[in-house]
């Protein structure tokens, strides 16, 4: 898995399981030599106590590498920044990061907006699942409070629609699994919504009914995923921002001050314009596709997907061309200022 474009001939790997560093080297390299062990440990000196942790990033240099290169030194800064962020994550969050890392590393090369869009899509997904769960609970409670049973026609009709919506939401392609009982398929049995058992518990409880017993666990699963996504998204942004900073630092370390100053202008221009272009491109593409061309009605699954797909495509194009344009502007500005 490669995350930073500046590390050609090398690969960045994200650790999926806690293990001794020697074991990781044995897995990653085919019969590693003594030098390979030494070099790996020198390059990855952020690893503490000889143990690699879930979510940590390590740099895999060629097996025959002897000296520490500039890229390797730069990588160490990124690895330390990742380690600092990892300290704030729980074990389940780190695991989620590992599962989603390939996706992060692919889009990190383009711009932060796509990351924002995907994270936003996941967040919207969790919000929508939560609102359907609430509707289901309301339907059960309202039916019981008004008619004292869960087998009237109105109840069955509403429940069928809500189960279908929840099933469609949980089956969405590329959305994170929410965990717990929230899986697509037979929603009624997955959520454990046995009418007989629910009525039995309610009749024991007596009085005015407001919730389904144990249903709150589903909200907790959604809330946890929502929190995880937010924090993992922040880590992805750290990795993305690291790209521009690493390019500037590299230019300032290897080259003379003129190249370093130039890199500051071009890289900043590139990063800024790619984000602006990404936002503009994403919004225009979504508006043109979903509002003008297809006239997609608000709030449904079609609107959600239309916005995500068109927004991602437009955001990618805007970010790419905007980045090129921003790099050019930065260079022109640098030359006109005569900064040496």
């Amino acid at each position, binding site marked *: 898995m490669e995350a930073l474009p500046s590390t050609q001939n090398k690969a960045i790997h994200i650790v999926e399981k806690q293990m001794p560093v020697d074991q990781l080297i044995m897995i990653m390299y085919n019969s590693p030599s003594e030098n390979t062990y030494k070099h790996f440990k020198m390059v990855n000196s952020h690893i503490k106590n000889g143990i690699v942790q879930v979510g940590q990033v390590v740099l895999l240099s060629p097996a025959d590498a002897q000296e520490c290169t500039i890229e390797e030194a730069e990588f160490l800064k990124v690895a330390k920044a990742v380690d600092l962020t990892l300290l704030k994550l729980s074990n389940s969050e780190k695991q989620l990061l590992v599962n989603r890392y390939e996706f992060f590393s692919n889009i990190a090369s383009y711009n932060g907006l796509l990351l*924002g*869009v995907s994270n*936003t899509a996941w*967040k*919207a997904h969790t*919000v*929508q699942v939560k*609102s359907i769960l609430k509707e289901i609970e309301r339907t059960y409670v309202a039916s019981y409070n008004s008619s004292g049973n869960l087998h009237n026609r109105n109840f069955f009709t509403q429940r069928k629609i809500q189960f279908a919506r929840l099933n469609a939401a949980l089956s969405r392609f590329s959305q994170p699994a929410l965990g717990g009982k929230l899986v697509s398929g037979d929603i009624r049995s997955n959520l454990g919504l046995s009418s007989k058992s629910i009525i039995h518990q309610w009749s024991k409880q007596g009085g005015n009914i407001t919730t389904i017993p144990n249903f709150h666990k589903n909200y907790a699963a959604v809330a946890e995923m929502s929190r995880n996504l937010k924090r993992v998204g922040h880590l992805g942004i750290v990795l993305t921002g690291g790209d521009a900073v690493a390019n500037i630092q590299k230019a300032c370390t290897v080259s003379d001050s003129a190249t370093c100053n130039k890199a500051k202008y071009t890289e900043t221009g590139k990063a*800024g*314009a790619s984000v*602006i*272009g990404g*936002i*503009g491109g*994403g*919004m*225009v593409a*979504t*508006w043109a596709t*979903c*509002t*003008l061309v297809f*006239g997609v*009605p*608000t*709030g449904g699954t079609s*609107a*959600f997907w239309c*916005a995500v797909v068109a*927004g991602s495509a437009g955001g990618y194009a805007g970010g790419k*061309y*905007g980045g*090129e*344009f*921003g790099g*050019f*502007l930065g260079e*022109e*500005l640098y*030359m*006109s*200022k*005569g900064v040496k």
Partner: protein
Amino acid sequence: MQDLSLLTETLMFLGFTGGAGIFIWIGIVLYLKSKWLPLLEDILDNGVRFYTLNVFFAGQGVLQYGTVFLSSFHAKRFGMYEKRDKVPKHIQRQFVFAFCWFMVSVTLFGAAIVLHRTYVL
């Protein structure tokens, strides 16, 4: 030091103006999201909460409602022709303004990119 050509100066003007415009528009979207968007969802979309889910969708909402207020054809297409009259005029004007602001900014920034790709690359 090097003098800028007319083309570069034009590109800079278009790029910086358009870019700043898009940046300011995000602020306008945040304001509308917190102030009027929930009300418009209640009136025009029967209370379905979609555009207020997050900033990305809020941006879409501002453009969608801006289109509905500007164009009778699209208002009819989305079944909002009669409903839009229930929205106070001053709110309609804010959404139309945000729509126009975004379109002008994106056009300037887009024109800069097109000119750059045509004459520079």
